[in-house]
């Protein structure tokens, strides 16, 4: 229940972002040099950097850039760290701290079974909430059908609901 309520609140903040402050993310950059040679294996590089630079959050797969450097991004709600590792061992870490609206936005979009225990637990709750929405909607329609005898208004509301949703999707996908 609290989990679903969080999506309602954060969804509202996304819809009306300006009401909750438009301050851009506060960025800070620090430079470092790796104490150990750079590993050519991205996974080794990632685990080594986490320990040396104190990177935290959900890691994205390392990306090799055209100039030969590696880009590693770690994100958690409200905080994104991006490390650029140059072939000569220089590292540039840029940290972006989101405002309140940005943090809630990140919570709203947090998904996927990766990143470790808490993130996976979040994804499980996410799946449960998603499945609940489908089950509660369908079981609600079934219960309405079973407990009412005069169903005209109900059928009309159902028709309006599904036609409006279908029409909205068709318009958004196919409108010129």
């Amino acid at each position: 229940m609290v989990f679903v309520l969080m999506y309602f609140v954060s969804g509202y903040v996304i819809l009306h972002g300006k009401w909750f402050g438009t301050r851009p993310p506060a960025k800070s950059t620090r430079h470092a040099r790796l104490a150990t040679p750079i590993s050519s294996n991205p996974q080794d590089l990632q685990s080594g950097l986490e320990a040396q630079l104190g990177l935290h959050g959900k890691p994205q797969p390392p990306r090799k850039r055209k100039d030969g450097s590696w880009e590693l991004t770690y994100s958690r709600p409200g905080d994104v760290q991006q490390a650029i590792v140059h072939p000569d061992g220089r590292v540039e870490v840029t940290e972006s701290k989101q405002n309140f609206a940005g943090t809630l936005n990140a919570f709203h979009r947090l998904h996927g079974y990766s990143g470790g225990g808490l993130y996976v637990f979040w994804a499980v709750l996410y799946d449960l909430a998603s499945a609940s929405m489908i089950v509660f909607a369908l079981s609600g329609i079934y219960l309405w059908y079973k407990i009412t005898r005069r169903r005209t208004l109900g059928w009309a509301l159902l028709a309006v609901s599904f036609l409006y949703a279908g029409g909205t999707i068709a318009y958004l996908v196919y409108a010129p």
Partner: protein
Amino acid sequence: MRKWILRLHLYGGLLCSSYLVLFGVSSLLFNHRVSFAEPGEQTVSWERDVTPGAAFTCTPRLS
């Protein structure tokens, strides 16, 4: 009072049911990598000279 709350719950639920199903299905697809829901390989690119302030139309070209 109870009767009105029940009606509000019942008919409000019927009105919102389609969106609940939509959000439920799209959320599940968002949380899992399902092949048919992945972005397609096909990209559309087009270019055209425009004159600022003038209306223009374009025909996308598939590549």
